[in-house]
């Protein structure tokens, strides 16, 4: 029997990809997408509506109808709407995988995790990098003791400016810091088991003339004193050869291990068409497919997905601490923004 999976809102740039992957997954029936339109402009309805692969009408269903028809949903709305959709799914007893960041306020993030726990539904957050073969190799190297005692962590997650609601402070909650902090922070927490203790942030809007920051350079410390810097700027031009990068380097007493996603690409040059020019095309196991497969398996087995909503809460705290640091012009302890609620 297939697991019935739907998508709540199609505002996120990943929505179309997730629908495609869901349609390809064995044992999964994509039952449709819903968008009540309350989130605002930017719906990708046109890209996911229309006939479904399995004969099910995959056109938009009203929210209530989707929750009736689904065992699990993926929330692909703007950040401000995550709360509405997650609470609605929990209330309907439907498992939920939510795009990142879970929330932009740590209290809200904790409340969403609690709502799902109380409702007894499987709840996760989209952290596809935990399924990247490169990140998995880094984790294995670290766990084998290849780097020895950890001494320094250096990461980047630089990208093109996504536009749309991502640059609307009301709908996104912030710019590059909100968008590009959690992927690498999540990896570092997962691999090392350490938490971010302090953040010093240099953020600014300098590259795209937008109302949110597009430069985001964070200098952090883990709870064991290990420095950890992260450049999450939207600094890749629109004409760059791919969407962006994820790089992570772990330096320790016995060695260093690192990966760079841009090195696992083919160089494709198109001489014509809409995408004329040089592009870098990734190869290898697709992290998005891994993410969705794990979520589906988790729902079926009634176990935690690889990144639970509860896992994601401290990562929201890092975002908050970053903004607090930028505002105050000094380092901010993450404990100061969680206020012990975490």
């Amino acid at each position: 029997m297939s697991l019935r999976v739907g998508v709540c809102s199609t505002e996120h740039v990943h929505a179309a990809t997730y629908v495609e992957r869901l349609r390809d997954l064995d044992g999964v029936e994509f039952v449709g997408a819903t968008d009540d339109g309350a989130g605002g402009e930017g719906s990708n309805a046109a890209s996911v509506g229309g006939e479904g692969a399995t004969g099910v009408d995959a056109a938009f269903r009203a929210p209530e109808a989707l929750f009736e028809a689904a065992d699990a949903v993926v929330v692909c709305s703007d950040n401000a709407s995550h709360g509405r959709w997650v609470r609605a799914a929990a209330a309907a007893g439907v498992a939920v995988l939510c795009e990142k960041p879970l929330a932009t306020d740590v209290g809200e993030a904790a409340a969403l995790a609690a709502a799902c726990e109380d409702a007894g539904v499987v709840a996760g957050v989209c952290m596809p990098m935990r399924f990247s073969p490169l990140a998995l190799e880094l984790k294995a190297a670290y766990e084998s003791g290849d780097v020895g005692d950890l001494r320094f962590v250096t990461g980047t997650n630089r990208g093109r400016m996504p536009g749309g609601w991502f640059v609307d402070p009301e709908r996104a909650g912030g710019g590059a810091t909100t968008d590009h902090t959690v992927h690498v922070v999540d990896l570092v927490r997962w691999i090392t088991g350490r938490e971010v203790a302090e953040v010093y942030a240099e953020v600014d809007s300098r590259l795209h003339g937008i109302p949110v920051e597009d430069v985001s350079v964070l200098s952090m410390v883990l709870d064991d004193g290990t420095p950890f810097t992260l450049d999450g700027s939207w600094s890749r031009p629109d004409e760059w050869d791919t969407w962006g990068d994820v790089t992570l380097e772990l330096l320790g007493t016995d060695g260093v291990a690192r990966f760079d996603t841009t090195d696992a690409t083919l160089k494709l040059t198109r001489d014509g068409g809409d995408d004329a020019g040089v592009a870098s095309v990734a190869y290898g196991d697709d992290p998005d497919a891994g993410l969705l497969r794990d979520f589906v398996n988790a729902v079926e087995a009634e176990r935690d997905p690889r990144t639970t909503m509860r896992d994601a809460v401290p990562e929201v705290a890092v975002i908050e601490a970053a903004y607090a640091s930028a505002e105050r012009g000094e380092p901010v302890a993450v404990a100061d923004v969680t206020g012990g609620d975490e």
Partner: protein
Amino acid sequence: MRGARVGVVMVTIALVGSGRIAEEHALAYADVADADVVGVASTDDPGGFAERLGLDAAAFEDETAMLDALDPAVVDVCPPVDRRAASVERAVERGCDVFCEGPLARTLADAERVRDGVADAGVTFAVGNALRFAAPYVRARELVEAGEVGTPGVARATRVGPRPAGTRSGGDDDDAAAADGVLFERCVHDFDYLRWVLGDVARVHARRAAWGTGGEGGERVAATLRFVGGAVGHVEGSWERSSSRPLDASFEVAGDDGLVEYDGATAAFGRYAADGGDASTGTPTGASPRRRELDAFLGCVADGGTPRATADDGVAAVRVALAAAESVECGGPVRVAEVEA
């Protein structure tokens, strides 16, 4: 093949130092037609140094004795950092033109005293930073100057890799004076380069980790900069024991209209021995950056031009490094203009 340029007098050069950098300078001068290294002063076997490099140069344990004996036109200063200011002063007092390897000094007071002494003496003075003559760095700056990336917004410079032989340890257990190793031996060159491209730095926040002792020690620093012009920078440097990973010197400058990236880890040239011996890779670009730099300096000596990196630049780079060191200690950002040490 050596031959003096027509009408140019042979420039006599006295070298202060006998370490790795002095060796690079001596070898670079050997290729310069109108330069002659006539003396080497060092407390560490100057005679052996001269002999090893085949220099027809007199060896001195004492710099003053060398300057007295040889009365050189130019003094090339490249002892350990904390001795450079004094050597520059000795040379400048005698009216010698001076090339001083960067960083200029370990303290602001020393750096400023050098700058003031140079200004008073009216000699030709250059601070060394081979990056200002390294092809990719030069070309990237040209692109930025030409507006190819628009107004810069965020820049990154990386200099990570194995410890060079003979460096003093930056490990926890060692002399605190050597604790700024990576900042003053690696990062400072990128501070100077980024200043050259993006202008003065307003504030610095830096973090540092160091471990081990002696030659087994490792150290890494990451400095987050805010430039006066508003751009943000991330400069990272390290000394690691992982000698299997070669030096990675890379940088990028992202602006509101584009991005220029240099990946120093890729090499355009490689040579590999069939017997599995050491491989040699790199990207030759014509004359070496060191050679270009010294050539340019000697050109300024000859025609009175202003070197690419002046004493003011030397002071400014030291300020940024000191601000970073202070930030490491105090944990907060440090305004570069307020550095007092």
